[in-house]
């Protein structure tokens, strides 16, 4: 019965034997010296690429964050500058206003002083004028009286008149 089988489907023990040896040899040698280093290298490369990609993403995110930060800083700086300018402006305005006020008050004070001085001088001048006018009037009146009261009768009537006048006052 076995003889009727096609020799093509009857395995030869020799080839089975050598094939087993050859396959085991390949499995051991290639497994140790070819597949292991090759797969390790491929895995390393793949993980390297993955890492690089992750790193790139991280860098990108960092750069974006930095840019945002920069912008924020810039905006803040701008704001600060505006505040500073405003403050400076206010200060200068205040200074000007203060100076104006001070000048005005000084002016007022000087004016008041001047007016006071003028008034005093005027008063002094008026007093002097009054005094001089009084002296002149007394002098004139003395001269007039001397002339009018050169006789005794007139003198007495005048005194009498004056006395009357005093009594009326």
């Amino acid at each position, binding site marked *: 019965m076995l003889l009727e089988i096609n020799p*093509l489907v009857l*395995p*030869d023990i020799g080839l089975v034997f050598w094939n087993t040896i050859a396959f085991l040899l390949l499995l051991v040698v290639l497994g140790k010296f070819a597949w292991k280093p090759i797969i390790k290298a491929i895995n390393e490369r793949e993980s390297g690429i993955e890492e690089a990609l992750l790193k790139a993403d991280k860098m990108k995110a960092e750069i974006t964050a930095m840019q945002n930060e920069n912008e924020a800083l810039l905006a803040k700086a701008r704001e600060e500058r505006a505040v500073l300018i405003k403050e400076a402006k206010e200060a200068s305005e205040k200074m000007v206003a203060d100076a104006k006020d001070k000048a005005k008050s000084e002016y007022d004070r000087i004016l008041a002083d001047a007016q006071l001085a003028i008034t005093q001088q005027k008063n002094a001048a008026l007093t002097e004028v009054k005094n001089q006018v009084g002296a002149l009037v007394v002098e004139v009146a003395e001269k007039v009286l001397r002339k009018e009261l050169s006789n005794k009768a007139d003198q007495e009537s005048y005194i009498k008149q004056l006395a009357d006048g005093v009594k009326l006052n």
Partner: protein
Amino acid sequence: MSCSRIKSLLVVSFGLFALLFSTSLLANENKAVAVDSNGVATQEQPSTEHGAKKEEAFNVTETILEHIKDDHSWHLWGHTSIHLPVIVKTNKGFEFFSSEKLMDEHHEPAVYKGNFDYKLIEGKLKIVDANGNEDKEANKQLWDLSITKNVASLFVSVFILLVVLLSSAAAYKKRGVTSAPKGLQSFMEPIILFVRDEVAIPNIGAKKAGKYLPFLLTIFFLILINNFLGLIPFFPGGANVSGNIAFTMTLAVFVFIVVNLSANKSYWEHIFWMPGMHWSMKLFLAPIELIGVFTKPISLMIRLFANITAGHILVLSLICLIFIFKTVFASAIAVPFAVFIGMIELLVAFLQAFIFTMLAAMYIGMATEEHHHHEEGHGEHKDLAHH
């Protein structure tokens, strides 16, 4: 996921188709051989007047089988061939001699007298009795471990694989991992990645694939190189290693061993006591599943053997057309067809290596798979059945 299911389904259906196709071819071959042995028997009687008459009686089946079968010498051209060493183990110990001694000057089988009388009968080494007939009793203790044509070709392929793969492994060491692969290395890397990403990881899972990857890669490359060497019609090729049942059987046995040694508890449970089934169904399924354990590697063995052998028979048949019609004009049809089939054979050479490795990976994947979802799944089925 569904894509890969469809792919594997396609592969399986293609394999089945190829199996059917090639078995029908083999059946034809069987008949042809029967006829052939008659033809040989009739031919040997008038052996005194051979020569011109034998030239005329061109036997296609014999010619084709001669090219497909293993041989003790490696034919180069014309009458030149390499005489390979014969290694024989009998109960009288080992014997080594050149296969040249098994041929006489007319290239006919001759008897070599060693510890026993050896003679080639239909290309196979046998112990013969004094009359030159096969001694069946003595042959039971004969172990023919000769370096035959297939063994020598296998060694050539092993040598090529070692040189190519070790040098590309050295390239990684030399060039580092950061630089792009170059030369031979860049040719091998896509194939290695293909086996890893398309064969090992989808079937076994990324976690366990690394453990089985060296085994799968070795199988893939060994089959691939032998398929390609088998397609070369002259010296470094010319042998039909991957179309030999002994070669495919050995690889299938290795797959069988690896699958069953790595099988986990749930795999065996699914074979002997299918969970979630009625006990009668479990009893019914156990023998079927048990047969499946063996049919899986056997299908691997037959598929590769049949596909490669069928391809060789096809090409040789087409070439033989020229000798059948005995006119050079037949080559106008035969050669383009042979070239066309040769192209398909190139594809088949790759495809069969892929399918063998793919199915081996699938079997390993099935044996190592963790069945977490199964209990629920069966429970649901039960519920549905109740409703």
